[in-house]
């Protein structure tokens, strides 16, 4: 059976290679052989997750390649589309974000064990730079980078770690981690200013990465509203893919008097947003703060702001460095100063909004200048002294 099908498949493949010349509708990947290829492997979240993977894809496809993926193929995007995806800070960045003329090649992963062959496949297809989106690809990026010393890699959210969990450096792998605590600090400060009763935090899995969000958030609340920081409620759902659990936790927090809640919980967070949206529909004065991408469109009127993690910018800049020939291995940490994290536009109105935003800007300046160090774990948080 196998041999028969293999023969059929081979024969049809050969037959079709033979009629190649007659066909005019070759896919774009073939039509532009001169462009440098940049590959990207998503984690199991994949395209369309509204946050992490989509952010990386935006950096590669819309920004670096000037293309949009639609109906199973790429079409060139207009300058307006690119402009519409930039916040004011990004639009004023120098050098500006413009298409770099690379060809994107994206493979979505269906399971953990596919990360390694997928990375390998893109290298084999001639990708000069291959992006691994998410710390779950750490092992796979390490293995493939060691086997292909000439190819370059960008790993998001984790340094390369050895078997005992210590960071190591590979000459052809750039790794980018984000100082999520700094962005969380700012949304915490805003939550402290907006909240009238109690502030809440919902995390996904209880891992160091999410603990960074919590530590920064707590410090932020303490900076503007020490009383609220005392009573802050933090909960972990234990997963990143359980919308129902997120909704339940969100409802639970609101029942305990929380009126501003920050979620860093992947898909569980979508449930938190849903819970807050429904509570608002019942007339309660509650807000939610989104994470990773600007999530305002999910519940306009309920999402106060979002703690954006600029994975898109990290991907874009790696492609730019590749073109400039300056892409080297090593670890990069990106915080407020590097526009690695930040606040989405605050679209909602609340009493004292202008003063609140002025206060946030002042805090931001102090973090950027290095005057204020934001804690990233429980130990640092305990030593942190809030200065209003």
């Amino acid at each position, binding site marked *: *059976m*196998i041999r*028969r*099908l*293999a023969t*059929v*498949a*081979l024969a*049809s*493949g050969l037959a*079709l*290679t033979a009629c190649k010349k007659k*066909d005019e*509708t*070759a*896919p774009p*990947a073939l039509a532009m052989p001169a462009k440098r290829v940049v590959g990207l492997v998503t984690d*199991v979240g*994949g395209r369309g997750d509204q946050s992490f993977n989509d952010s990386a894809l935006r950096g590669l496809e819309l920004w670096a390649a000037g293309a949009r*993926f639609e*109906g*199973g*193929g*790429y079409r060139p995007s207009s300058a307006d589309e690119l402009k519409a995806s930039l916040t004011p800070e990004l639009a004023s960045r120098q050098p500006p974000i413009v298409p770099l003329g690379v060809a994107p*090649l*994206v*493979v*979505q992963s*269906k*399971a*953990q*064990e*596919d990360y*390694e*062959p*997928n990375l*390998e*496949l893109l290298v084999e*297809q001639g990708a000069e730079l291959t992006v691994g989106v998410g*710390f*779950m690809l*750490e092992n796979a990026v390490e293995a493939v980078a060691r*086997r292909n010393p000439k190819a370059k890699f960008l790993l998001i*959210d*984790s340094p390369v*770690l050895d*078997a005992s*969990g*210590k*960071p190591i450096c590979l000459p052809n792998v750039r790794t980018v981690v984000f100082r999520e605590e700094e962005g969380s600090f700012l949304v915490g400060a805003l939550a402290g200013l907006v909240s009238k009763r109690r502030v809440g935090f919902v995390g996904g899995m*209880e*891992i*160091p*990465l999410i*603990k*960074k969000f919590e530590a920064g958030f707590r410090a932020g609340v303490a900076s503007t509203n020490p009383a609220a920081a005392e009573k802050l409620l933090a909960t972990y759902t*234990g*997963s990143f893919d359980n919308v129902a659990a997120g909704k339940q936790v969100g409802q639970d927090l609101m029942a305990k008097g929380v009126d501003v809640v920050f979620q860093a919980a992947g898909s569980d967070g979508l449930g938190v947003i849903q819970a807050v949206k429904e509570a608002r529909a019942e007339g309660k004065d509650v807000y939610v703060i989104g994470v990773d991408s600007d999530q305002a469109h999910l519940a306009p009127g309920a999402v106060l702001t979002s703690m954006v993690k600029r994975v898109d910018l990290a991907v874009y800049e790696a492609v730019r460095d590749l073109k400039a020939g300056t892409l080297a291995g090593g670890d990069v940490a990106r915080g407020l100063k590097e526009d690695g994290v930040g606040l989405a536009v605050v679209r909602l109105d609340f009493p004292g909004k202008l003063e609140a935003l002025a206060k946030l800007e002042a805090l931001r300046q102090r973090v950027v200048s290095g005057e204020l160090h934001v804690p*990233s*774990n429980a130990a640092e948080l305990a030593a942190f002294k809030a200065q209003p």
Partner: protein
Amino acid sequence: MTDVTLRARLVRPFQTALPSVLSVALALAVCFLAIVASQGSLWVAARAYAEMAWGGFGDLPKLFAGADASALTRPWGETASKTALLTLTGLSVAVAFSVGLFNIGAQGQMMVGALSAAVLGGKLALPWPLHVAVCLAGAALAGAAYAEIAAALKLERGVHEVISTIMLNWIAVSLVENWLVVGPLRAQASGDNSISGTDEILASAQLPRLLGETSRLHAGILVAAALAVAVWYWLARTRYGFESRAVGLGPEAARAAGIPVAARVYQAMALSGALAGVAGAVLVMGTEHKFPATLGAPYGFDGIAISLIGQNHPLGVLASAALFGALRAGGTRMQLLGVHKSFPELIQGLALLFVAARLVWETLLSRFRREPAASATVEVPRA
């Protein structure tokens, strides 16, 4: 006389396999049309199928263009690792079918097996071949024990195994993935770094790679193939296997004939769970080298499709696992042309649907046969 027997022996397997072969061919054709419809181009669909073939069976064009042997060995490695897992879970389902049980719990049994292998491989220090054997045996025991819960519930309390195995799957997910792997057994990284899954297993517990470092082809495929032959021998050539099949065909008749029905059901369920447990161990010891954050694709559920497409015959399972292992390993390459990632699974799903509709095939085929088929081609699982 001998001529007739010889002919029967040569022709029968083909007749048995024919509905499956036709189903798979039809599934491939329908999926091809679906790609044409979604991409709006015959050319893209054809190239996608060609990519799938190169990715599953070896990249011949690249080899002819002067690439080294890794153009063949790397695709073979991916196909073989998927084939090994699908074979083992397919066998698990087929063995349970033989006594008339529908084991939907291969996924959960695989999970406890994978966890056992990850723990034994990471915590024990043993020399190489022994360590591998201990991990495989531990995973088989864990999977068997987990399956016996469903068997006991069925035999002692009359709980339908479809219900109990589905529930046991969720218990395994909650216990293993949502608690142990993110809680007590989670690997620790330095500083604020996060790492997924359990600690890595020791090198002595890894299944050896057979074609060098560039290909992930590991000894798991040999384990799976050997077990497929062993299960075939057990079912077709031993008294226990015969009695198990008798139980599957009619428990009352079997009991009347003096066959210990309960004992055969316990044995078959233990074997079924052990095979699923070994599948988990092969995943951990072959490619992942730890229990990952989430345990792979749902191979346990795929096993149901693989078993049915393979006509619940151990060697049929091996063949259908090899085919779908290749299609799914190669199917990733269809994404290079913008084809959606789900199409390889669509082929498998369609093939299952067409096999399930085998009555249609048999009616069509019987018109072309001079003599009626000797027996039904598929043993229907009885619950």
